[in-house]
């Protein structure tokens, strides 16, 4: 039997030579892989980088700690657990602390810019048993200290503070001043600068009396087995409500990041899918082109496996090369984006991003995907190559013309799939409709060869009008219809690219319509008091009831509604819990209900443990009005009754739920107002009221006062910016289909070298040859575009229907006229651009050389 | 073609005696095996040429041994040679012995025509093979004139072989057609056209 490892060398040599021999084609094919890998790899670097920034930001103060205990929800808890852990054998020291990120409003300090600080309340004696607090200057905290803080050298430098100066911090009680008694070494970890105060001080400043949110434990031993045993004992003592390890807060932002990552991954997979398509097409051509060579190799003793190997090795070479370059470029792209957004992160989210993080798993998955897709795409052509009989070597080369069966199995399968897709629309079952969408795409790909001929005829007529009386359009049309499956594959690549474009535009436009709707309703109040970071409630510092009460007292105010926040979890998934006042909230703001109705839902919220879920939350847990849900709270699990499913503007992307403020206080001990909405009486003196508001808010620098209409306007602008970002991404997605068209055309020209030589020899001018190629490209592009728009409209509709049906977000389909027009423009433009190089090449071809071309 | 023009040509080169003429001719054709000319033929030719006044004889005593007669070309001789150079050589392409053999075989039915073709073809191939062997042995640096002659023979043989294929391919049809009959002149009155 053939020793395959030994024949590898000849396969490698051949593959490398063939690839080198067709540089342009190799480049184009490899580019397709590079692009897919780039998107997947680059985008997946982003999330872990952000994640690690979060973790370091949350944990940087903890340094070397053996065990870290936090509540599952990330919320505060009573310190009695400390004593129970103290009693466990093998525990040397335990220290409870209260840590909180405090976002600093812009321009809060005149002497320097700080985005956020971590306020850490510790018991000085216990804390010093757990870690080393060596100071550069001054002294450390003592148990009975008040109004004093220890800060880092870096913070001192930034704010130009010296020992003995006062540090001003925004708190729930308004701004407070802390005297600096010690300065610690600058920390090297990225993250927020810590400010250490005594635990009782922190509890006072944060209005959380007798509560902590972190317990740090130091163990007796360094023996790994014993440490594990002790850690297990601690976990048992703490119970299910607590977790060992890092803090879980900030996860609401992660959820939003994850959904973005999902979208990017979708993009990357589509790009890889198209890459696979291009590779499949290339190898099909390669096999057709080399039938002679393959036949000869078979004749002189190459086994079928050797031939399969030969084609696959070529695929692997390109796959490995493309993946390697893709990973390199992906890293650069990821690092570039990290660098570009780190400023934004610093300013808006108060998180310092570190160096790009590459998870080993991502590397493995990316390589497997990149090389795998190439291999998989090369497999079918390789198999068909292995079936080339050795006799092929003895036959003179004859241009292959596909025998077109009138109705092939593929055509029938395609029709059936599309019929199924159409029928699925009537089921209103989201999973069947989604399956239908996939079937529709596959069906179109299968049907494409049969449709190429009539479509080429129709567009050929149009092109003939443009290139009148030269016969070039006829020739181009002939070229397409002679090999319908090759043309169909190229057109399919264009189709998929454009379908995604049109579908995405459709979805985006529908989304915008929906968002506008919700925006008006949920943020329609006259005035808003916004925290620095909207949406990531956990890091926002709110205000105590005094602020809302003062605002209510202003003459001319009709109603004030406040929103409070607590983190909780259902099962192991995080949910943002918002506390509202069921009475005032509907007066000022509102929710878009998809289940239940506004009036009864808010009434029920006021009585007992009732909850309103948003669309994402309801979809995630498959909950409906009338179901009950168990929320994790610092007081243990609490059962709430679902009374409605509804969305507001800010929290649409994140799993969110609404309960009454009374329940939030009872179960989660939270009374901080993080968002305040104000409606004025109809006859109020706006200027005077606003002036009064400014006065009150000045004491709470963490809030920003903004009029509702201005805010809605601002949000629309933000969305416009976000949408244009999406449009740019879509443009990137269209790039592989440009490569696909370019590739097929280039291959077409190579395949027909002899024919073009003949045309030139019998008197076709360069111009005519160029036009033939150009006409062919336009025909291909037009075909792909026609299919693409059709498929895109359908897909977009299915997705909008799906989102609507899932109840995540109320949507109505908007027909993407702009998207369709853009697709036509992009499709035809690509056709022409893609044709320019091959057309030039064909026209410049040396006649003698072309005629001799084997 | 006769030896006559060869002798004239060789004498135009320079005066020679009979023996010398024979040797020179044989050198040209590449050996006695290829084209043998006996001394009698040479001398008979010389005598005839002398009678026509195309060559002239000079007696010349040899220092030792028998006396040798030296011949040289005359003015008329040169004219005759020029005449020969300026005219094309006649060939009788239609005269073919194999053809007669085949026709007689068909006419008499005394032999298998296919066997005839086979035998002839085998012979032609054997000849072709032998000449090919010779040709590959010849040194193209020194014996190009000879190779030229081999090539001519090869080409003739090739033509004959191709013709043999043609004969074989058409034999069935030929056998179906009537045998060529002599076109005898009708005796007596010519037949009337009416009827």
């Amino acid at each position, binding site marked *: *039997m*053939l*020793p395959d490892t030994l*024949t590898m*060398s*000849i396969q490698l*040599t*051949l593959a490398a*030579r*063939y690839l*080198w*021999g067709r540089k342009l084609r190799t480049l184009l094919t490899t580019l397709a892989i590079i692009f897919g890998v780039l998107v997947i790899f680059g985008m997946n670097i982003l999330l872990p980088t952000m994640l690690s920034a979060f973790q370091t930001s949350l944990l940087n103060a903890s340094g070397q700690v053996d065990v870290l205990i936090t509540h599952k929800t990330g919320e505060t808890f009573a310190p009695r657990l400390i004593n129970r852990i103290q009693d466990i054998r093998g525990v040397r020291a335990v220290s409870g602390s209260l840590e909180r990120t405090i976002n600093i409003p812009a321009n809060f300090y005149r002497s320097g810019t700080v985005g956020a600080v971590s306020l850490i309340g510790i018991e000085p004696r216990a804390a010093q048993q757990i870690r080393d607090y060596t100071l550069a200057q001054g002294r450390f905290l003592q148990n009975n200290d008040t109004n004093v803080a220890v800060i880092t050298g870096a913070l001192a430098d930034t704010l130009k503070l010296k020992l003995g100066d006062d540090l001003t911090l925004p708190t729930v009680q308004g701004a407070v001043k802390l005297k600096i008694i010690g300065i610690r070494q600058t920390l090297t970890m990225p993250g927020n600068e810590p400010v250490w105060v005594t635990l009782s001080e922190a509890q006072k400043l944060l209005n959380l009396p007798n509560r902590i949110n972190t317990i740090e434990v130091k163990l007796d031993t360094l023996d790994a087995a014993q440490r594990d045993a002790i850690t297990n004992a601690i976990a048992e003592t703490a119970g299910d409500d607590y977790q060992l390890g890092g803090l879980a807060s900030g996860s609401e932002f992660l959820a939003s990041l994850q959904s973005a990552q999902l979208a990017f991954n979708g993009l990357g997979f589509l790009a890889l899918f198209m890459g696979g398509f291009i590779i499949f097409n290339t190898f099909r051509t390669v096999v057709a082109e080399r039938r*002679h*060579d393959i*036949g*000869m*190799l*078979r*004749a*002189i*003793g*190459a*086994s*079928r496996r*050797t031939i399969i190997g030969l084609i696959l090795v070529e695929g692997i070479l390109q796959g490995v090369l493309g993946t390697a370059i893709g990973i390199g470029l992906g890293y650069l792209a990821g690092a570039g984006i990290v660098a570009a957004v780190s400023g934004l992160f610093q300013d808006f989210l108060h998180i310092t991003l570190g160096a790009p993080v590459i998870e080993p798993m991502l590397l493995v998955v990316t390589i497997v995907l990149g090389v795998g897709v190439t291999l998989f795409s090369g497999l079918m052509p390789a198999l068909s190559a292995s079936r080339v*009989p*050795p*006799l092929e070597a*003895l036959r003179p*080369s004859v241009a292959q013309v596909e025998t077109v069966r009138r109705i092939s199995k593929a055509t029938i399968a395609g029709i059936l799939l599309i019929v199924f897709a159409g029928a699925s629309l009537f089921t209103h079952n989201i999973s069947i409709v989604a399956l239908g969408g996939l079937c529709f795409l596959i069906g179109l790909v299968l049907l494409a060869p049969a449709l190429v001929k009539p479509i080429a005829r129709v567009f050929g007529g149009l092109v003939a009008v443009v290139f009148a009386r030269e016969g070039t359009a006829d020739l181009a049309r002939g070229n397409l219809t002679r090999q319908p499956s090759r043309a169909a594959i190229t057109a399919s690549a264009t189709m998929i690219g454009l379908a995604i474009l049109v579908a995405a535009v459709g979805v985006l436009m529908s989304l915008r319509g929906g968002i506008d709707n919700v925006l008006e309703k949920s943020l329609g109040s006259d005035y808003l008091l916004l925290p620095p970071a909207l949406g990531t409630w956990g890091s926002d510092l709110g205000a105590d009831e005094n602020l809302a009460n003062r605002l209510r007292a202003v003459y001319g105010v009709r109603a004030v509604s406040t929103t409070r926040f607590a983190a909780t979890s259902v099962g192991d998934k995080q949910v943002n819990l918002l506390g509202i006042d069921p009475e005032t909230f509907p007066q000022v703001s509102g929710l878009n209900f998809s289940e239940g109705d506004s009036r009864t839902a808010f009434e029920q919220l006021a009585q007992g443990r009732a909850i309103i879920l948003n669309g994402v939350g309801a979809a995630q847990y498959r909950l409906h009005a009338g179901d009950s849900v168990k929320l994790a709270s610092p007081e243990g699990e609490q059962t709430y009754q679902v009374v409605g499913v509804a969305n507001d503007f800010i929290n649409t992307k994140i799993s969110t739920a609404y309960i009454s403020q009374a329940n939030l206080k009872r179960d989660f001990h939270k009374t901080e107002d993080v968002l305040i909405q104000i409606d004025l009486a109809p006859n109020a003196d706006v200027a005077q009221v606003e002036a009064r508001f400014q006065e009150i808010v000045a004491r709470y620098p963490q809030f920003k006062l903004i009029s509702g209409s201005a805010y809605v306007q601002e949000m629309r602008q933000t969305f416009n910016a976000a949408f244009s970002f999406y449009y740019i991404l879509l443009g990137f997605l269209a790039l592989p289909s440009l490569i696909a068209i370019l590739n097929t055309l280039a291959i077409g020209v190579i395949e027909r070298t002899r024919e073009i030589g003949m045309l030139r020899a019998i008197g076709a001018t360069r111009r005519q040859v160029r036009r033939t190629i150009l006409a062919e490209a336009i025909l291909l592009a037009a075909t792909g575009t026609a299919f693409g728009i059709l498929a895109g409209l359908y897909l977009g509709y299915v997705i909008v229907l799906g989102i609507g049906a899932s109840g995540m977000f109320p949507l109505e389909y908007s027909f993407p006229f702009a998207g369709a027009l853009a697709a036509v423009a992009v499709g035809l433009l690509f056709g022409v651009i893609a044709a320019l190089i091959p057309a030039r090449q064909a026209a410049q071809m040396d006649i003698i050389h072309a005629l001799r071309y*084997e | 073609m006769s030896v006559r023009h060869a002798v004239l040509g060789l004498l135009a080169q320079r005066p020679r005696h009979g023996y010398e003429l024979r040797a020179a001719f044989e050198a040209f054709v590449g*050996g006695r*095996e*290829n*084209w043998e000319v006996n001394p009698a033929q040479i001398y008979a030719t010389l005598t005839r040429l002398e009678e026509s006044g195309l060559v002239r004889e000079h007696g010349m005593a040899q220092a030792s041994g028998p006396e040798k007669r030296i011949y040289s070309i005359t003015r008329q001789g040169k004219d005759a040679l020029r005449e020969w150079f300026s005219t094309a050589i006649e*060939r009788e392409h239609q005269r073919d012995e194999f053809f007669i053999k085949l026709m007689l075989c068909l006419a008499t039915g005394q032999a298998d025509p296919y066997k005839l073709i*086979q035998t002839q*073809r*085998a012979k032609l*191939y*054997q*000849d*072709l*093979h*032998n*000449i*090919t*062997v*010779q040709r*590959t*042995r010849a040194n193209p640096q020194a014996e190009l004139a000879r190779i030229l*002659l081999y090539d*001519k*023979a*090869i080409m*003739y*043989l*090739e033509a004959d072989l*191709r013709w043999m294929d043609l004969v074989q*391919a058409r034999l069935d049809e030929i056998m179906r057609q009537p045998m060529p009959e002599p076109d005898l002149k009708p005796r007596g009155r010519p037949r009337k056209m009416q009827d």
Partner: protein
Amino acid sequence: MSLVQTQDLTKIYGSGETAVTALDRVNVKIDAGEFVAVMGPSGCGKSTLLHLLGGLDRPTSGEVLIEGASLGKLSDDKLTELRRRKIGFVFQFFNLIPVLDAVENAALPVMLDGVNASKAKTQARDWLERVGLQNRLHSRPDQLSGGQQQRVAIARALVAEPALVLADEPTGNLDSRAADEIAGLLRQVAEAWGRSVVMVTHDPRIAAYADRIIFLKDGTIVDETRLHTKDGQDAEMVLGKMKVLAE
């Protein structure tokens, strides 16, 4: 025992009314070191015979025996292995891989057999020198003349030291001078290097290089001529006769 032998070799293409009998109970024997030319009009089955001898195609009935072993019983893999080790092919269109140079092309069969690259190339170089291409070892096919390309193909056919070389119209794509050189080289393959050579040709001049000529017509052998190489004297005599014939 003959190197190659066929027994009632029959090949029918298609079936039913459209069936075409390409070969009809053909029996041939080819000895080691023998140079056999197969001739006949187009469609006589000469290429089919060659394909069957080389295991490129399977007969409808009958057998091909190489060194006494029947090809019919071999699996595709075994047949492939046999082609690799026992048979060398020379094609009309040379069929060299355009992206490989002369040495690499010639080395292909042994490399496919798992011989390491440097050893394979040494063998290939050796054969290329024997076929007179010592100066063009690293030329690519497009840098070689037709005759030179066919020499590379012959070196490739010989590199695995096969017992049988099959040539399908090896001179069909060459001018007459190059054709003669290639035919002479094939004669050398048989005469000097001891391989059996079976060559399909329609050119009598090329066939005359062989030891034996088999004539096929309508799938059957109609004639067979054994040619004897006599000494020079005989040849010169023939030449003399030719001259007379031309007179």
